[in-house]
């Protein structure tokens, strides 16, 4: 086994991990690891483990590695070495303490951002290997508390935030009423069968950021989009089960989402500014269900705004003045290729766009994604300290004059907020929707 990492000195206490570990026996660990490896993995795991030449070239891809002064424990391959290699090599005969460390590595020291996949000469998908570890951690019942609780919320309510059946339509009607004060005939059409677009969001929007739904409704209204939102489960496109390794639940969530779109007879699913949800509906959940590509065209907010602006369906009254810098979220850029469209939108709505470097597919992760922010307060500093390099990158953009940081992804938003705050960078963080709502032409 690897020598312990420096940071193990200050052990975090997580009730999900600690209680889970206390219930483990070596036999249980062995049988779970082997059953996952034997029955759920195949050529990928085998080829990735056997092809890796241990060259370490993935190291500099990882923001954790860079932020920890190149501590090899945080390099992508280093994390693989400390987790799945060992499990494979020892045929599952690892200790509960090893599992504890593996849970912390897989859940809080990797965002599954796949930047390393772009740095490995062989194209080894290290995020996949870490996902296998998370699957094992799930099967062992050692998932961090906050993330597991989110998965439980998904399992009960089909949304991420324990939003109950009545609270969802109630919130939409409340936002509709609010927006009608600004635009009297504005509607948030619920359950409108045959609309062109189903608009889906993640549960933090109705729970904490209802103004985002308001803004989206205004954009939809002004652009004249024939849209609807479901009043049943299936409205939430988020998916922490995907990150907690609970694939069965991931499939259930995505089935609910897609079948809601099918029931509403829409042609497209337009989704809010969320990254992981895009990964879930566009790339992961559909596959578990047997769809090689999603059964409905998935349009992320970036692409949606891009099309609306390009087609002249929304017009910009006055471009946004403060210089902005643009954060490329991994799941929609490295995972969806929306970087140029994001720039089109940014330039269309803002007077000045200052690039941060690296950018586009090579942007540094926010360190919140991949379910890491959902491991909650116990690991907040893990995220912040693990992403000093992001602070440096943002500071670079700030030095060139950026005042506002646009992050078209919820997880990025929250993660970057912590980074900006902790490192005292002094950037306002906004969604595209915030700015579009502010600068677009609206009916008098």
């Amino acid at each position, binding site marked *: 086994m690897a020598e312990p990492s420096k940071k193990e000195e200050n052990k975090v206490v997580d*009730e*999900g991990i600690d*209680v889970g570990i206390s219930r483990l026996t070596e036999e249980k660990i062995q049988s779970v690891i082997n059953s996952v490896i034997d*029955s*759920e993995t195949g050529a990928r795991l085998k080829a990735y483990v056997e092809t890796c030449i241990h060259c370490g070239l993935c190291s500099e891809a990882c923001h954790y590695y860079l932020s920890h002064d190149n501590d090899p424990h945080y390099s992508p391959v280093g994390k693989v070495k400390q987790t799945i290699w060992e499990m494979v090599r020892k045929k599952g005969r690892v200790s509960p303490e090893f599992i504890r460390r593996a849970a912390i590595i897989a859940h809080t020291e990797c965002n599954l951002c796949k930047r390393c996949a772009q740095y490995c000469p062989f194209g080894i998908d290290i995020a996949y290997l870490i996902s296998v570890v998370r699957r094992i951690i*799930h*099967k062992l*019942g050692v998932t961090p*508390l*906050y993330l*597991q*609780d989110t998965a*439980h*919320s998904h*399992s*009960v*309510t*089909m949304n991420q935030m*324990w939003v*109950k*059946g*009545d609270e969802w*339509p*109630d919130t939409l*009607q409340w936002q509709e*009423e609010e927006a*009608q004060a600004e635009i*009297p*005939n504005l*509607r948030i*059409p*619920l*359950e*409108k069968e*045959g609309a062109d677009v189903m608009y889906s969001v993640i549960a933090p929007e109705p729970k904490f950021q209802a103004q985002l739904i308001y803004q989206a409704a205004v954009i939809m209204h002004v652009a004249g989009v024939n849209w609807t939102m479901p*009043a*049943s*489960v299936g409205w939430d496109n988020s998916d922490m089960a995907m990150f907690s390794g*609970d694939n*069965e639940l991931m*499939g*259930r969530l995505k*089935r609910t989402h897609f079948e809601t779109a*099918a029931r509403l*007879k829409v*042609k497209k699913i337009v989704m809010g500014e969320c990254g992981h949800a895009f990964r879930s509906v566009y790339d992961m959940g559909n596959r578990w*269900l*047997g*769809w*090689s*590509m999603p*059964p*409905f*065209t998935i349009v992320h907010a970036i692409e949606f705004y891009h099309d609306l602006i390009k087609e002249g369906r929304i017009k910009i009254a006055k471009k946004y003045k403060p210089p902005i810098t643009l954060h490329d979220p991994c799941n929609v850029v490295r995972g969806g290729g929306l970087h140029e469209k994001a720039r089109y939108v940014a330039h269309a709505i803002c007077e000045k766009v200052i690039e941060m470097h690296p950018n586009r597919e090579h942007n540094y992760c926010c360190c919140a994604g991949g379910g890491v922010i959902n491991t909650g307060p116990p690991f907040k500093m893990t995220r912040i300290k693990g992403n000093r390099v992001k602070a440096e990158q943002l500071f670079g953009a700030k030095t060139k004059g950026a005042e506002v940081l646009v992050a078209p992804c919820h997880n990025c938003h929250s993660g970057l907020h912590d980074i900006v705050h902790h490192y005292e960078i002094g950037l306002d963080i906004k969604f595209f929707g915030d700015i579009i709502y502010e600068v677009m032409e609206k009916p008098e």
Partner: protein
Amino acid sequence: MVDSRSWDWETGEKNVSLDSWKKEYRWVEEPYASPDGEKIAAIVNVDEGEFTVCVNGKVWGETVFDKIWHLRFSPDGRLTALVSEMGEWTMAVNGEAWENKFGYIWEPRFSIDGTAIAAAVQQDMRYGMVLNGKPWEQTFANMTYFALSPDGRHTAGAVQVEDVDSGEIHKFQKGSFTAALDGNPWDMRFVNVWNLAISTDGEHLAAEVRLNLYDYTIAVDGVPWESRYATVWEPLFNPVTGTVVAPVREKGTWALAENGKILWDRRFVQIWHQMFSPDGSRLAAIVAPKYGRWTVAVDGVPWPATFATLVTDATFSPDGRRIAALAKDGETFRVVVDGNPWTDAWDMAWKPVFSPDGKDVAAKVEKKGRYTYTVNNRVWSRSCDIAWDPVFSPDGTHLMLRTVEAGNYVRRIVPVSDIVG
């Protein structure tokens, strides 16, 4: 079933002008046509925070509500909506609100014949079902999935019987949910309960249950099947024998199980939306025979034709001999009958409708925002701004087509032969 023999199958065309509505109200929401085609209705805004429903040009009842949503005709032709007055919610039927009011009401359900109307309700942060205006006596901390029996006499819900605060993951994993029939919960606790089904006779309740984070099965009347699965999908009662059938996942593939025993020999990449023929003798399901390919399997045998994107809205003919469904390839839909896709591809299609004798199939379809109908692989000559599902006459010779064309609601009785040729 709704008896359509008393409907007017003689008059060729009836019209209701909709244009005038727009002048009368601040806004008019999307219209709904009654099952018999005689009425067209829409939620309309009278003034700020004042709503009513306009039915064939006339106002719906006396009351103006603070908010109205989910306007739907029940199968028996009553017009229902969820309405709010003075901060309280209830169901209004033909303009009259139920006496009982709630903190919130949502997801209304109709029985097959339309005589029963149920919905989920919340009052003082307690949850239950309401059936024809009468709520359950027992309420729950949360309720997540709902069902109304086919005959409309019973309601069920997945209910939380143990309070668990968010963050109490270990307590949650001990089980806090169960299912309740008519408000009476089962004794057993589950981690999760989803997708309830009530038997045809209304006596039995089945649900998907999760026994711990990893083991799933079907529970019937509170008793789980002995077999455990990696996961399961919605259970379904055989309408005749009363056995329960559900898709189950084992070792990464799906099978269909009946009362805990594997039913079909063949396994699939996916199985769901299983359905019995009306006489219970045939069982079909939407399946993926291989990754990324979809079709319908009948009694375990998939149609040879498979489709890339989606198969949905499968339906048996009344005699149980034929099956129609919709298949999506890329961005377009086709009607598929007994495995044979029809010629025309559409931007959207709706669930196919069989004639009572099962000979003819009709479906509402849409291309580039224009709606029309396709019958037996022929297409109706007209296209419309809005359309509702086609309805066959009891003798199967005519179709009632309900459309909106140039600001007019039109109810047409069209001989099937006019379209089929």
